[in-house]
């Protein structure tokens, strides 16, 4: 039985908790390639217990909440610190106002106990194809700021996901924040299918972000999770939606394109065929939701 191995203690390691970014990058420098970064720790703790990760050194970012946390809006940009927890994201008025889809997905991550410690930066760095936060961030055109001892750079959020559980960070680099254009005109929504409502990996997740003006969709993006090696932008669907009539018929067409854009596999949670079906159903549902909210008085 798998669970018995958890009774054995986690193999020992050195624990480092830098108190400044300077200390952090110095710690990276002095430990070469032997360290593992810890943000909230909800993924890493499981990896340590299952011996998937056997680091010599764990570098905990937990003392850097001031530098790497917080949620703010400034200069037309919603900035979410990498160490912001899903509980903080779920209850942020800024996120609700400018990134509705992200708020919805944050409220669905794990359980209350997980959301209390799991962080947005950690969710991205783990780079699961089913990462709950990814489709909303892709749909909302999020950028990710990366920090290292030698400077910073900014990547579109998709570039963080380079393969299943593979991220685009360079050695010695951390995610410092995520930036989303703060535009009240953008409506966004997220939904997913999972085996149960709570504490389950998504079988399919979908996010849509769009504007509606004069009966037409403005710049629109449909993003999908758990239907490809990484979360993806559904390109054909996004193109088909942008500039098209904001109607139920168009929702059907865009949803069909989204299903075409997906490249799912069959696994223990669902068959590829069923996942494609779900992409279509969930995409259509979200677009209809955005339409009905836009038409509401």
């Amino acid at each position, binding site marked *: 039985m798998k669970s018995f191995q*958890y009774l054995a203690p986690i193999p020992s390691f050195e624990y480092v908790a830098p108190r400044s970014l300077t200390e952090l990058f110095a710690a990276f420098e002095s430990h070469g390639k032997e360290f593992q970064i810890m943000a909230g720790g909800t993924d890493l*703790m*499981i990896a340590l217990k299952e011996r998937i990760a056997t680091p010599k050194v764990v570098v905990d970012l937990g003392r850097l909440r001031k530098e790497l946390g917080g949620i703010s809006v400034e200069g037309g940009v919603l900035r979410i610190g990498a160490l912001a927890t899903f509980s903080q994201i779920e209850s942020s008025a800024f996120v609700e106002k400018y990134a509705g889809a992200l708020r919805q997905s944050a409220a669905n991550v794990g*359980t209350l106990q*997980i959301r209390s410690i799991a962080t947005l930066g950690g969710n991205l760095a783990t780079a699961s194809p089913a990462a709950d936060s990814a489709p909303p961030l892709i749909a909302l055109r999020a950028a990710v700021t990366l920090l290292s001892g030698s400077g910073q750079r900014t990547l579109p959020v998709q570039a963080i996901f380079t393969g299943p559980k593979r991220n685009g960070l360079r050695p010695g680099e951390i995610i410092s924040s995520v930036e989303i254009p703060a535009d009240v005109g953008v409506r966004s929504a997220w939904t997913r299918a999972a085996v149960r409502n709570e504490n389950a990996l998504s079988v399919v997740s979908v996010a849509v972000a769009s504007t509606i003006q004069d009966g037409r969709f403005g710049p629109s993006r449909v993003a999908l999770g758990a239907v490809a090696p990484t979360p993806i932008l559904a390109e054909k669907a996004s193109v088909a939606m942008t500039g098209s009539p904001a109607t139920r018929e168009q929702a059907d067409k865009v949803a069909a394109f989204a299903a075409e854009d997906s490249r799912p596999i069959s696994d223990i949670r669902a068959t590829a065929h069923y996942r494609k079906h779900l992409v279509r159903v969930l995409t259509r549902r979200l677009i209809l939701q955005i339409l009905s909210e836009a038409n509401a008085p």
Partner: protein
Amino acid sequence: MLNGVSKTDEIEPNQTLCDYLHDLAGTTSVKKGCDTGECGACTVLLDDMPVTSCLVLAPQIDGRDVVTAEGLGKKSAPHPIQREFVEQDAVQCGYCIPGMIVTLSWIFEHAPGASDAEIRRLMSGNLCRCTGYLQQVEALKSARKRT
């Protein structure tokens, strides 16, 4: 701080907060169930947020505030949730109860307007293998009525 009292201990980095609290700090209400963050038996408040202590490394709590079920109330002065768990018979084998009480005390304090559906969503990280969740939800609602 553990249950309002400042505490200093030498701990191994590879020790979980759950093991530290149960085995070394003497707060035996903290139960190890799944040890993978699924069951909620080890739930404690960390800086006033419910967390599964099996997913926290003991050294991570340096300088932070931890409250276990012991810290919520005493036999002579129980927390409203603890009192109502007794009143509503919201206990069977008892293993999940300290974690349940910690989570429900947080919902009681921080989500006073939560609907039944919202209460159930918030307590979905606490599993009971004996009986169910009806009495625990009733305990929360009854605690709300009496305060």
